């Protein structure tokens, strides 16, 4: 698992191509459908329409209505059907349009998918993959813009990942499909048009490790999903004023790769956790607490968190922008954390 795999997915080689996050995910889906007859996709408008975010565009034409299936507007129903198919030996990929709608399927996901292996005494695997979107920034208002991935990261029995790069969008899916447990993949709506290198030959990426996306010495910024590009931009700006920020892409929201976080923070002695979700009870709190427990004696400042304002995400662009952490906020928080006098 591993370093080699991960390095391969992130390092440019002769075969590396530049893909958008959307294209990378589509390529992963295409490969899954082509390679394994047990794989099928279902969800709202995934077939003719190509998915609300156009991720499944073209797959319906190539693989047909049986393998790329539209469903009624009933998340509880089609997620339950996906669980049944998984139990029956299929490898369903269920698309839930946004994480807000996943709440209608919480019973299926939390009470059924996450528990069956346990309640059957190890007899029933649920090899279900759920893809859904998370995050704000596209003026989709309060019922389509929330970041609730932390709720799922709370639940034992689920694996929760958040690819933040095209390479991870391309290579996390095959690992998720190979996993006998239910895996939820959170795709941030703001990332679909992001471009990045993808090695078509890299092979499946691990699902349980955080990755240092940028090395630094003065503080560790922990980010996932849509916060990662902002963290990297902030790190560039911080470097101009002499602050060297290490940026870690959490990638796996459950389990959390604490060793990677702790190794970094024990060296930088400061940590800033970014979360597009809310602060109170958020995944940011779990990450911050875990870092504090593991690194308390090497901390040179309190573990800091930067999260969204505690409001439903607004529709108006300026209000939406103000509600979620932006690059300037990250820079300010980081400077304050390292004791920069100007902060």
């Amino acid at each position, binding site marked *: 698992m591993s370093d080699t795999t991960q390095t391969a997915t992130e390092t440019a080689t002769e075969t590396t191509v530049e893909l958008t996050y959307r294209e990378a995910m589509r390529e992963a889906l295409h490969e899954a459908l082509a390679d394994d007859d047990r794989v099928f996709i279902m969800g709202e408008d995934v077939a003719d329409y190509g998915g609300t975010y156009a991720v499944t565009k073209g797959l319906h034409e190539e693989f047909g209505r049986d393998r790329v299936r539209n469903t009624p507007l009933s998340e509880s129903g089609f997620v339950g059907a996906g669980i049944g198919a998984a139990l029956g030996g299929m490898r369903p990929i269920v698309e839930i349009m946004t994480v807000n709608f996943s709440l209608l399927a919480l019973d299926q996901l939390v009470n059924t998918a996450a528990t069956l292996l346990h309640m059957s005494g190890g007899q029933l695997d649920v090899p279900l993959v759920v893809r859904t979107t998370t995050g704000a920034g596209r003026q989709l208002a309060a019922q389509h813009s929330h970041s609730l991935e932390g709720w799922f990261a709370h639940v034992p029995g689920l694996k929760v990942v958040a690819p933040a790069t095209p390479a991870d969008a391309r290579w996390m899916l095959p690992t998720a499909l190979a996993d006998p447990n239910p895996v939820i993949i959170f795709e941030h709506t703001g990332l679909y048009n992001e471009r990045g290198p993808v090695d078509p030959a890299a092979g499946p990426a691990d699902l349980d490790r955080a990755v240092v996306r940028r090395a630094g010495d003065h503080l560790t910024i922990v980010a996932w999903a849509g916060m990662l590009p902002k963290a990297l931009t902030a790190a560039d700006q911080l470097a101009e004023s002499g602050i060297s920020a290490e940026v870690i892409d959490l990638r796996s929201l459950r389990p959390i790769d604490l060793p990677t976080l702790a190794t970094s923070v024990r060296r930088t*002695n400061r940590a800033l956790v970014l979360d597009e979700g809310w602060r109170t009870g958020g995944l940011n709190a779990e990450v911050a607490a875990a870092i504090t427990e593991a690194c308390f*004696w*090497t901390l040179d400042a309190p573990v*800091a968190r930067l999260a969204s*304002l*505690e409001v439903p995400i607004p529709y108006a662009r300026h209000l939406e922008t103000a509600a979620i952490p932006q690059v300037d*906020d990250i820079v300010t*928080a980081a400077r304050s954390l390292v*004791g920069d006098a100007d902060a």
Partner: protein
Amino acid sequence: MPETDATTFDYAMPSLGADMDDGRVLEWHVAPGDTVHRGDLVALVETEKSDIDIEIWHDGIVDEFLVDVGDLVAVGTPIVRLRTLDGEPPPSGTPAPVAEPGAGPDEVEDVVSTVTRAASADAWRPPAATSGGRVPASPLARRRAAELGLDLGELHGSGPGGAVVDADVIAASTRAAVTAPSPATTSPRRSADTMRTMIAERMATANREIPHYHLTRDLDLGSLDAWLTERNAERPIAERILPAACFVRAVAVAAARHPELNGFWSDGRFEPADAVNVAMAISLRRGGLVTPKIERADERSVDEVMSALRELVAAARSGSLRASWMTGATITVTHLGDTGADLVHGVISPPQVALVGFGRTRSMPWVLGDDIVVRPVVTSSLAADHRATDGAIGSRFLATIADLLDQPEQL
């Protein structure tokens, strides 16, 4: 953690020195069900410096052990849960492990105002240091300062809200152009090497931070010798008074008369101590030394000081020093003994401000009246902190000691 109620309280790992971060329980001296009283020894604890028997501060009945033998736990960690004796309330000030009362409306408002995305700098700004309270400092800074033997209170804090951060500690240690020992990794095992490291750091700090001045004075011990010979004549060997006890007693009385030398330098000023607790430097056979104290030595007779001294030396050499002996000394005495050197230029043990040394007692020509006679002579020396006192005070202090030892009946 098990539920507690109004009839239980916890006893926590005590701090047996300013630089103690953690301790390991090596042995319990009590068992669940035992009734203990204030001052009873409850456990043998291994610290970086030595193995120390720790005392309980309150009466109670041992209910359960909260840590296992061999566990290394931080200072302040509850290690024993006790039940109160019949009908008694838990000791006040005992940090019973019960939930804090809920926040009042005002506090809730404060909390809510910080519960926003804006991780404003204020959110992680430490509260201002209260007078006499803890210096705001990061855990890393606190640990490194302890490793380097630096007093956090003397450092300038550049972190949020003036908190002392790691860079401040490093700056303070490098300003003095002294290469600090590499930070010791937190080794679960303590050893003689660790004691050496601790002594090294402490003494390096003392030499770096304290502007010492040194005074010496030769003393004629003829009168003391005669006085001791007389007092010891009818005593069994085990009860005889040794000159060291007289030295300690003389220093204690002199310290009480010259309070400028009895106390601590902290936060940039001298704080006189309210008692005279004389630490005695005792070298250990396996190497290193410890400095347990004789409490209120100025209020004790020479005989009492002697018996305390015997107890300390025996305990130090058998590794069973009590916790309460290891902290709170206000002045230190070092006595090289009769096989040692003639003169000691001592290094003060911070935050104390004075150390008194006595060299070897030897026969010397001495002018007495108009005659040159052979007398037993010892060289007394004072190492004092020039921030706290000047040579005139130190000089008078040594003169007082000389006077006391010359007229031992005053002891």
